[in-house]
């Protein structure tokens, strides 16, 4: 609202979408959507999952065609019927799932299908590598053009995708949730590159669920809701206002954590004050070393740190997925066998893994089968599964979690990210888990469903369960945790709680190299550890 730059960013109009409508059997995905993108602006496309962002993008990249409405590029109406059409018009899209061939080199991926040729028609490797090197410099990616793509991490893969888009001389660059999988430093690099592109006149359509990124990077925002474009506002618009526009109602609080006034009553079976989970000296070099912490009933303990700090590895070791070399894990005072998922489950642990599609769901199985998966053994009597009981329980938990579905027979693949995550969590509720390990629980989940998941965390802890939450989303970790443990290079660098848990404090611990002295000993000395 302030700043003339925000109201009149960039120059002439590059792309215009007018009254576009698209229906699929049973749903109207887009209903009269309009969007205007100018040269030299970053235009944020905001909306909950299912609001129509993906359909709109697929229309611009030639996957779907509009039923009604027009798409104009440089003021001329165009028909985008294929990826080649989009390419010719200078529209490049970086999808959430990358289109890279793992076995080929970086340079080969950048020029896939468009490799420079020699006079003999063979691929001119030298030219290709030189041009790739130039593009990699532009995206500040320090890898050799001859390196295979297979070994690169997600952040670097994304940069390769951007380099590929640059090689097409794209004037319109569409980025679908590019920051969902990046750490905050990587996001910083990405933003710098996007700003450079913007300043060179490229129009960028940027999709994100992270509201704080909008003001940081964007110029204008088009909000989609239920397939309609609700409005276009400047990127400086207040976050709460953006949320209201996006969900069509007020969300009182983004992180509605209800902290227990006092430590919650421990479970009856446990000794008063005894932790539900006690981890000591957990080590598997080089992934993690001498990790120790407690989690009490009724508590949400956050596990923060950079990607690669060893958080997921610790979670998997606790849950018995992977083995560890030394250390102990106790649940309710009883030691847990190493490398035994079933023992961990019997002790009341549940893991909501970081990659819900690859590790959490049977994508092509029914929601009912997914929900009852972790209690299959409990529901078996004399070898036979009580299918009727399973259906009843699945229906109950789906109702309780407000899963938006057509029925329990629907396949998990067809749900939105937030509803898929509810299914994975529901699976552990049905299995009777008392301590839930949530690994990146809201990655790719829209704002509305996020809050529902947070509420559920509150409900669980109020009922005496505990949650260990790994998250790279700092506001989330800080907003939802009662205490935050910060991991660095496989060690716990420190614990923060109450007022001392700020973004700055967490980042300071997360990036600080660990020395041997500051191993975290026991959580009993809450707040007394001196940094």
């Amino acid at each position, binding site marked *: 609202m302030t700043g003339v730059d925000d109201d009149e960013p960039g120059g002439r109009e590059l792309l215009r979408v007018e009254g576009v409508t698209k229906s699929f059997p049973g749903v109207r995905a887009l209903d009269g959507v309009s969007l205007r993108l100018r040269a030299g602006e970053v235009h944020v496309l905001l909306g909950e999952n299912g609001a129509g962002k993906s359909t709109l993008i697929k229309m611009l990249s030639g996957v779907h065609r509009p039923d009604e409405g027009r798409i104009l590029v440089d003021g001329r109406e165009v028909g985008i019927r294929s990826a080649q059409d989009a390419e010719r018009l200078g529209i490049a899209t970086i999808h959430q799932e990358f289109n890279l061939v793992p076995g080929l080199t970086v340079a080969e991926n950048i020029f896939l299908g468009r490799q420079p040729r020699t006079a003999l028609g063979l691929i001119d490797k030298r030219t290709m590598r030189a041009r790739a090197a130039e593009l990699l410099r532009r995206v500040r990616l320090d890898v050799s053009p001859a390196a295979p793509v297979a070994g690169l991490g997600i952040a670097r893969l994304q940069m390769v995708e951007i380099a590929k888009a640059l090689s097409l001389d794209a004037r319109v660059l569409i980025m679908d949730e590019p920051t969902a999988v990046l750490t905050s430093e990587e996001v910083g690099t990405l933003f710098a590159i996007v700003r450079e592109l913007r300043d060179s006149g490229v129009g960028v359509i940027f999709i994100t669920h992270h509201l704080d990124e909008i003001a940081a990077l964007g110029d204008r925002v088009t909000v989609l809701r239920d397939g309609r474009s609700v409005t276009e506002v400047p990127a400086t618009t207040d976050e709460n206002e953006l949320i209201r526009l996006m969900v069509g109602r007020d969300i009182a609080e983004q992180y509605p954590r209800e902290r227990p006034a006092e430590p919650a009553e421990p479970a009856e079976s446990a000794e008063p004050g005894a932790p539900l989970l006690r981890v000591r000296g957990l080590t598997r070099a080089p992934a993690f070393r001498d990790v120790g912490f407690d989690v009490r009933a009724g508590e949400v303990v956050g596990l923060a740190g950079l990607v690669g700090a060893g958080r997921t590895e610790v979670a998997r070791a606790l*849950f018995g*997925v992977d083995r560890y070399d030394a250390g102990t894990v106790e649940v309710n005072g009883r030691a847990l066998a190493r490398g035994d*998922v*079933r023992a961990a*489950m019997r002790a009341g642990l549940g*893991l909501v*893994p970081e990659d819900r599609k*690859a*590790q*959490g*769901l*049977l*994508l*092509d*199985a029914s929601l009912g*089968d997914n929900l009852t*998966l*972790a209690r*299959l*053994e409990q529901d*078996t009597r004399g*070898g*036979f*599964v009580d*299918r009727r009981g399973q259906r009843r329980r699945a229906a109950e938990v789906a109702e309780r979690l407000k899963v938006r579905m057509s029925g329990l027979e629907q396949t998990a693949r067809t749900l939105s990210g937030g509803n898929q995550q509810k299914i994975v969590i529901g*699976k552990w509720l049905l*299995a009777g888990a008392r301590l839930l390990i949530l690994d990146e629980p809201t990655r790719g989940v829209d704002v509305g469903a996020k809050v529902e998941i947070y509420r559920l965390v509150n409900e669980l802890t109020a009922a005496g369960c505990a949650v260990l939450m790994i998250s790279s989303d700092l506001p989330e970790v800080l907003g939802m945790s009662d205490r935050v443990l910060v991991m660095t290079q496989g060690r716990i660098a420190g614990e923060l709680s109450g007022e001392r848990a700020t973004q700055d404090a967490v980042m300071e611990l997360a990036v600080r190299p660990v020395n041997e002295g500051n191993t975290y000993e026991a959580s009993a000395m809450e707040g007394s550890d001196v940094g």
Partner: protein
Amino acid sequence: MSAEVLRAPGSDPGQWFTRAVLRNGPLGGLVALVVVMAVLSRDFLNGQNLLNVGVQASVTAILALGVTFVIVSAGIDLSVGSVAALSATVLAWAATKEGLPVWVAVLLGLAVGAGAGLLSGALVAYGRLPAFIATLAMLSVGRGLALVISGGSPIAFPSSVGRLGDTLGGWLPVPVLVTVAMGAVAALVLARTYTGRAMFAIGGNEEAARLSGIDVKRRKLVIYALSGLFAAVAGIVLAARLTSAQPQAAVGYELDAIAAVVIGGASLSGGSGKASGTLIGALILAVLRNGLNLLSVSAFWQQVATGLVIALAVLLDTLRRRSAR
């Protein structure tokens, strides 16, 4: 042709036919095939011939039911033909040559089948061999052992077990009854047992199944053992029909069995499959062979037709699923 002009659009029998087949999947395909055969050959649609089809389908069907378990769990079992022959050979050897009581011999034959499966399962689950390789090895080992035990020549089958190849009341073939019974068992296992549900979970997403507390390795042992057990039953039925256990019996049957499972709508990538579909798949193969025999089509061309039907069946199934999405 001028007759076409008179028909209202959509009433074209060809179109109706295509739609019916698409909507009902494998069953639609079977019905369509039966209709075509009945039209082309007057001898096809009589009771005796249909029972013959049932008998011809029985061995493939029982093998395929066992393979269904494995395919649902995203594995493959190439060894079932060999294991069938080995089980029947052991049974005949124990009863005829060693003079053991027939019931002991039968149990021994079944145990050999289940044991062979167990071994394949152990190689897959604990040895981390690809299922293709582990069961390919078992295919060779099983056939070899059958030849070793029998010395390469057929062994007479004990007559009491041989009755499995006869008919009840002079008309109802026992192999058909055995197939129906095994089909019911397989359906029950798939739909209602812990192991059955675990098959779908492992085939759907092995990592998710493991992280949800399914004991994946032990289940794989059970799954391959079940496949071996079904193969043993199939081998015994086959030997009963032939009245002797032949070490060279059922060569290549594993491919028919896999074809039946896939025609029946299961996906080789795992996570889906039904006992009824597999039975229908086996029937489609048998109806095709029987019908082409009645039509005096040469055995060479029959192979071509079988291949086309397999491709067509899976193609139609893929189309059907895509249109259902």
